[in-house]
């Protein structure tokens, strides 16, 4: 028997790639799949029920068998049945889905943080230790990883199907997602929100490494400057240290140890200082004036790139004392470059 080579190729491909489900490569994946199978079960049962009713009635009451229709008005009992049972099922699905949602979108507090910037049409990942990746992401197994993501231009969406996680990457605001990879290997990263011409080229690979391999990778691929160090340079070159020097007479509030604290603002509200707050306070300072300070800070909207903002946020995050800020101030007044020696590192 002769099978055309094209068809043969196709059949081979079919057999090799007949996966019906993506791999389960994160701790969340089994939870997502469980709900998926439950929903699939309801669908199949529902479809079977409707099918049996339709075909059963069609055979039993077809015209040859049942030439005269018997008029029936309806039945409150039946109506109630097919109102309440689907409603109950849907409510179960709702609760289950909500639990899963909070599991996926609430990162554990000990998660390691990686920044992701989406832009037309690439993903930039920035590790706090100064590893920069484009359309790639290296993560270790067994550790929760939180991604703090922002877009430089339009809406993007960061999706790793094998981890069952996805989150919109929005311009002007951090969004987060987290996962804990379980199996070493490489997995697809997709941009799933349509973002212009090369939307389908905005893909990448996440490489999951064992903790040892990951440490090796970290050391090999660092750029030599951590994000916080970049931030320190930027902090000095933008002149932030002039006001945020930490001294008692400074015009801006002390930033050492501010991350994670609660701030009292002039408008009377209290805020938790997190990444989003720091970013917004740099861009829209007047809406975030710490109590006791004057609204004199200029806006840096349009002057710092998202990478720069991430560096600054990382720097402020890690800042424990103002010693180096004041050092920088004195050195920069004596017209020297900012120090490049590794200093403040994220714990």
């Amino acid at each position, binding site marked *: 028997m002769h099978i055309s080579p094209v068809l043969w190729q196709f059949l081979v491909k079919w057999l090799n790639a007949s996966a019906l489900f993506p791999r389960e490569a994160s701790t969340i994946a089994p939870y997502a799949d469980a709900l998926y199978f439950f929903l699939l079960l309801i669908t199949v049962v529902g479809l079977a029920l409707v099918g049996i009713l339709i075909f059963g009635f069609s055979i039993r009451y077809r015209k040859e068998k049942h030439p005269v229709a018997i008029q029936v008005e309806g039945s409150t009992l039946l109506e109630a049945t097919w109102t309440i049972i689907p409603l109950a099922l849907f409510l179960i699905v709702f609760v289950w889905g909500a639990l899963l949602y909070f599991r996926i979108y609430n990162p554990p507090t000990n998660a390691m943080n990686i920044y992701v910037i989406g832009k037309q049409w690439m993903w930039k990942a920035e590790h706090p230790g100064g590893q920069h990746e484009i359309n790639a992401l290296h993560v270790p197994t067994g550790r929760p990883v939180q991604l703090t993501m922002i877009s430089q231009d339009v809406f993007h969406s960061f999706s790793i199907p094998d981890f069952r996680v996805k989150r919109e990457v929005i311009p002007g605001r951090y969004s987060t997602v987290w996962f804990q990879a379980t199996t070493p290997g490489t997995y697809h990263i997709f941009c799933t929100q349509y973002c212009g011409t090369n939307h389908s080229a905005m893909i990448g690979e996440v490489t999951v490494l064992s903790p040892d391999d990951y440490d090796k990778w970290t050391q090999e691929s660092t750029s030599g400057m951590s994000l916080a160090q970049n931030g320190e340079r930027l902090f000095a070159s933008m002149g932030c240290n002039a006001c945020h020097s930490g001294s008692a007479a400074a015009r801006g509030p002390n930033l050492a140890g501010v991350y994670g604290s609660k701030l009292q603002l002039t408008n009377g509200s209290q805020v938790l200082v997190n990444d989003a707050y720091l970013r917004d306070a740099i861009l*829209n300072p007047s*809406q975030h004036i710490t109590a006791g300070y004057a609204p004199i800070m200029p806006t840096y909207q349009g002057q710092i790139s998202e990478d720069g903002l991430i560096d600054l946020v990382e720097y402020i995050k890690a800042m424990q004392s103002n010693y180096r800020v004041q050092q920088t101030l004195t050195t920069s007044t004596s017209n020297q470059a900012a120090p490049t020696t590794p200093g403040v590192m994220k714990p």
Partner: protein
Amino acid sequence: MDNAIVATHPHTHETAVAAEHEHVMLPQHRHHFETKEQQREAATFGMWLFLLTEIMFFGGLFFAYLLYRNWYHDAFVVSSNQLSIPLGAANTAILITSGFCMALGVWAAEVQKKGLLVLFLVLTTVFGVAFLGVKAVEYHEKWEKHHIPGAHFDVSEFINPQAYGLKEKPLAPDMAQKTQVFFFLYFAMTGMHAFHMILGIGLLFWLTWRAHRGEFSSGYVAPIENFGLYWHFVDIVWLFLFPLLYLINRHPGS
């Protein structure tokens, strides 16, 4: 509704059917209504449904205003102070007067007084045009002050009010940029409103002409009534725009 209407209602089955057969021979528009009353109510109801779409149309803008006013309250306060309350209040009065004339016009049509109807329609038009005139003056002032959003928009007045002889507190530069959001919404909302006014005035010319020809002098008043609904709706939009844009942002704490 009280059932007494049934007794007083002039249209009986017989007259309706008689009128009906006449129409089958001579198919003319609106042949499909059986009675005038049915046609009048259908027209009113249709007009109201159209006004519902208008509510939702402006609804989107009102929501945007509500959101950004709360986000950028300080900017909204100072930019709102740039608007002239006397002009706004005068315009409100003008528009209410125009609406009053329109209501009287509807009455004149209903009691079939052709001369009065034409007079009130003309008055409605005059006050409508006056409203647009005042609006044009206000827009012109915004143009001169560089308060029209876009490339020429200038925030220096809000950053450094003393230099312009204003008593406002200066805005931080980032907040001053947000005044553009206010002015954009100001122009979008009043512009959309003015656009409806212009459409309405165009319709008024047409209706005045028809009224002058005596088309509404024999009990057929649906166009006048329905246009009245439209005109009053446009008034109502302004009744909300005036306080939102001119009045409620006068005090920083509000």
